[in-house]
């Protein structure tokens, strides 16, 4: 699984951080999303999928990663 975010669309809601704390954070200066782990470990993937669904701005997309 590989995570891409669109920081143009992101409106800094923090839903992703709330849902998958190990994977997402928000930038200090503008509150927009930062991906801490673009290829999240298996244990975090369900939470990441949930975050994609919750994101109010549709700013997170998933694709198959190197190790899927």
């Amino acid at each position, binding site marked *: 699984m590989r995570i891409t975010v669109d920081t143009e669309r992101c409106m*800094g809601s*923090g839903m992703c*951080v709330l849902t998958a704390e190990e994977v997402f954070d928000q930038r*200090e200066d503008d509150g927009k999303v930062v991906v801490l782990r673009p290829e999240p470990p298996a244990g975090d993937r369900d939470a990441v999928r949930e975050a994609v669904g919750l994101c*109010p701005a549709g700013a997170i997309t998933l694709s198959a990663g190197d190790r899927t």
Partner: protein
Amino acid sequence: MGEAPHTITTLPTERPPGRPFDPPPELVEARRHGPISAYTFPGGKQGWLVTGFDLVRQVLADQRFSSRKELMLHPTVDYGDFVVPPAPPGEFLLMDEPRHGRYRRPLTARFTVRRMRLLTERIEQVTAEHLDAMAKAGPPADLVTAFAKPIPAVMICELLGVPYEERGSFQENVDKFMDGETNDEDLMAAYTSTQEYLAGLVAAKRANPTDDVLSELTESDLDDEELRGIALILLAAGIDTTANMLSLGTFALLRHPEQLAALRGDPALADRAVEELLRYLSVAKTFMRTALEDVEVGGQLIRAGSPVIASYHTANRDPDRFTDPHGLDLARQEGGHLAFGHGIHQCLGQQLARVEMRVAFPALLGRFPTLRLAVDPEEVDLRPETADIYGVKRLPVTWDA
């Protein structure tokens, strides 16, 4: 396109008797017919009522549906040819891009998950102070004035930089905007005096910046009128909503003793419990949008200019989205609800509200193990459906001293 939609002729004004936490039955019934219904606005304009979870989400995510104040039509009152002016500078809740972003963007970094969590300790302290005062003065107590209102009010005032001594009169005025029962004349007076107060506050921050959001914003390119508008919506949105979640939430817990016992027994349940209370109560019930172009939604063609009522509380009870939607289940695993909205207007203060509730509910239950209603549940005074935010006016409670 599509089949003839279910049609609603009037919007309900009452909740079902004895079920103060449920949306009016007419709305639940409308959802049963389908996620979108036709609704004729007073004055004859054809509009829509959206009650299904997926469709509400779709409308809120689609910027072809505008939040602009000047396009809005009151859902139950015909104001005739009265022309609604655009939202004043700073009041971005009722604006579209790019105006909306100009005001929201500089605030985003100040309401992140991390920043709000840093307030946990302060919230614990403020909560403990109010619980101490309540214990000293009672039993009984009115939970609204002793607990639910002051905690969020102290927090948002501290964040913004409203001096503690000035909070009282300010809060009284905000109450008048929000209770749904104040007459127009008093409403105008409350609005004017709030505006005057905020103008003074902004001037004071410019002259003597302190460590708060409003002072920080004086360093941006926003002018005084814009800052006043931002302060107004932050205070209005931050004081009343969380207060009603805390008081109505306590009422709901007291009416579901097995759920209350579960939360008391396992404070780690608090995070989930707060999300479920948000869903179940959906105190911010309804918001309006206006179609800027023709848009197809759920098989119906919404014409440009048509008003759309999005019913968040009905959507949060959608049986296609939640199992047993009318049940309060604090351990519910299905995440995601619309209590804070969706899309670009999704609540700016949601992470603050979450931390406040995650601290305050367990603290209240822990402090008063025998907490109970001091009146019959039927006698609890509820806000009318005309109020923008639902809630209880007073919640008389008692406990074994």
